[in-house]
């Protein structure tokens, strides 16, 4: 893994959080849902609510690791015309307003079609800081010359409850930015309870890695957010926010509603 030359916004943000003894709040939304223009308002509202990092979905037609809420969001975005170039252009505009760390969250095929290296290059130039490709495990990245991690972006890796200790070591060894621990089996989507064994798994991951560990999959209310924040370096909230956008996408109050929903989640995380 090659180290980037300049400071990365993700690293800088985690350094600040560490200095302040605070946990990170990571918010996921799908770029282009309901439109690319509104995504700029959505990200700014999330920043105002106190989010530390934004995971920005680059929509894919066949998101097999996502549940129905994120799948429908990708459909809406694609129908509204969210092209890969359009998403990169939107990020460039977003950077006129904010320096919040941005992680692109997507599947391999859109990246591959754009050109794997070219995508990294242009996404970084537009202002993205990291990338998480759900269906690109580190094994394939290391075995395909054309999929070698490009230094422009931090490569965020997933670890699952089913990942063996050996595999955790292997993934953690090449981890950059932060590790996303998927706290339960299944696709993305809100859950009524927090999965068990999180603290133990986070401890195993942290023993093998020196990057922060964020935990997600199913967080939808402040109690869950606080519970997870007490066990990890950060909490990821996705589907609950995406659902709010689904319900209020065309409302002029979208930004206010997002603020009202997300602020209590952030506050719960920051109180830990």
């Amino acid at each position, binding site marked *: 893994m090659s180290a980037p030359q300049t400071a990365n916004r993700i690293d800088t943000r985690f350094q600040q959080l560490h200095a302040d003894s605070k946990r990170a709040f990571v918010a996921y939304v799908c770029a282009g849902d309901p439109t690319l223009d509104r995504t700029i308002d959505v990200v700014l509202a999330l920043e105002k609510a106190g989010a530390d990092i934004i995971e920005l979905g680059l929509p*894919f037609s066949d*998101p097999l*690791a996502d549940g129905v809420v994120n799948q429908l969001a990708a459909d809406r975005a694609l129908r509204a015309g969210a092209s890969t170039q359009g998403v990169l252009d939107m990020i460039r505009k977003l950077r006129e307003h904010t320096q919040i760390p941005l992680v692109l969250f997507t599947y391999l095929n859109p990246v591959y079609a754009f050109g794997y290296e070219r995508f990294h290059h242009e996404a970084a130039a537009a202002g993205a800081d990291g990338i998480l490709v759900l*269906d690109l495990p580190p*094994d394939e990245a290391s075995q395909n010359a054309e999929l070698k991690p490009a230094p422009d972006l931090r490569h965020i890796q997933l670890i699952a409850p089913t990942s063996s200790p050996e595999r955790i070591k292997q993934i953690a060894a090449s981890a950059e930015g932060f590790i996303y621990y998927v706290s339960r089996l299944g696709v993305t989507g809100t859950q009524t309870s927090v999965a068990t064994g999180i603290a133990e798994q986070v401890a195993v991951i942290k023993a093998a890695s020196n990057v922060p560990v964020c935990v997600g999959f199913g967080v939808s209310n402040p109690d869950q957010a606080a519970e997870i924040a007490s066990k990890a370096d950060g909490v990821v909230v996705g589907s609950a926010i995406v659902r709010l956008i689904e319900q209020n996408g065309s409302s002029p109050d979208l930004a206010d509603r997002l603020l009202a929903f997300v602020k209590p989640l952030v506050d719960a995380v920051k109180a830990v």
Partner: protein
Amino acid sequence: MSTATLPLPVMPDTHGHFGRFGGMFVPETLMAALTDLSDHYDRARKDPAFQAELDRLLGDYVGRPTPLYLAERWTEKLGGAKVYLKREDLLHTGAHKINNALGQALLALRLGKKRIIAETGAGQHGVATATVCARFGFDCTIYMGKVDMERQALNVARMRFLGAKVVAVTAGQATLKEAVNEAMRDWVTNVETTHYILGSALGSHPFPMMVRDFHRVIGVEAREQILARENRLPDLLVACVGGGSNAMGLFHPFLNDEGVRMIGVEAGGEGILPEKHAARFQGGRLGVLQGTKTWLLANADGQIELTHSVSAGLDYAAIGPEHAWLHEQGRVEYTYATDDEAMGGFQELSRVEGIIPALESAHAVAHVKKIAPLMSPDDIIVVNLSGRGDKDVAQAARIVFGEDIFKM
């Protein structure tokens, strides 16, 4: 003839790559299950007891070996090469799909899984899976696109009688690709108790290799049968290719036989125009879908395109990775037959030989109709009749007679 240098290397490598194709492009949540499946399959295929049990059931329960039938009247009508049909349509449940479903069910027993899920397009893989689940007492859920459920209503009813739960998938174009997505989502969620019997030579490693291996029996038998009958190998093999399992099964045992030409027939739908066909080597591009790197139909942004075929079993945006590799090697040629040509093949084989082929297999039949007359009477063609057409009769009657057979 083949432009490849023979013998071909053994494929795939230990990580499931067929050259630059294939692999394991899956989320981390599935890696443990796929590795476990790979390990168990590796042990099973080296275990004579596993093979003996599979062979016994393939014989007594499934009805192997299937005949290699010389289609005399059709050969005469075509006026060229001698045409043999490999009669996979005579198998229990009506298509080659059960070879793989049975193999994987035996493997699921070894994995200690109690629940089986599968996707299905034409319903043949769903019926085969529901059948082996009934036979071994597995809980069974089949994912099927809503559009496919409508055009294959008979198979939906069969699955229900066999005790399977059939879940309608309404996302996207509601056909095979969406059913695979839904089955994968189920598997990600229930991976600890559930085995996913993928129905074609597709998806992440080890599926393309394992599905091919379970269907190799088709080619192994055909090779012995033609040698016994003609005392020589055939000049040409023809099979339809959706994901490509029946074609891999027939082709694989002949790959290193220099004089044997092979043609895979994709679905040309209404013609090679965007969203009107499912012929990945015509206007497709290299990409990654549902766990594997292969040729697929996508737009410039990598978004998967809609596909169309009269045959639900061929109506899929990606081709199995080993086919992508064989295409690149120049070992197998790929062409397509349109909906109309397939309907022509369907009717001709029914009338001339008294054999109603599945609409999938009718694509291979349609290509033989084109090519056999151009060949010499000394040439031999073996075409894989991968399934029977009973399931397609209602749809074909609508197309050919303009009649709804359920309202007569």
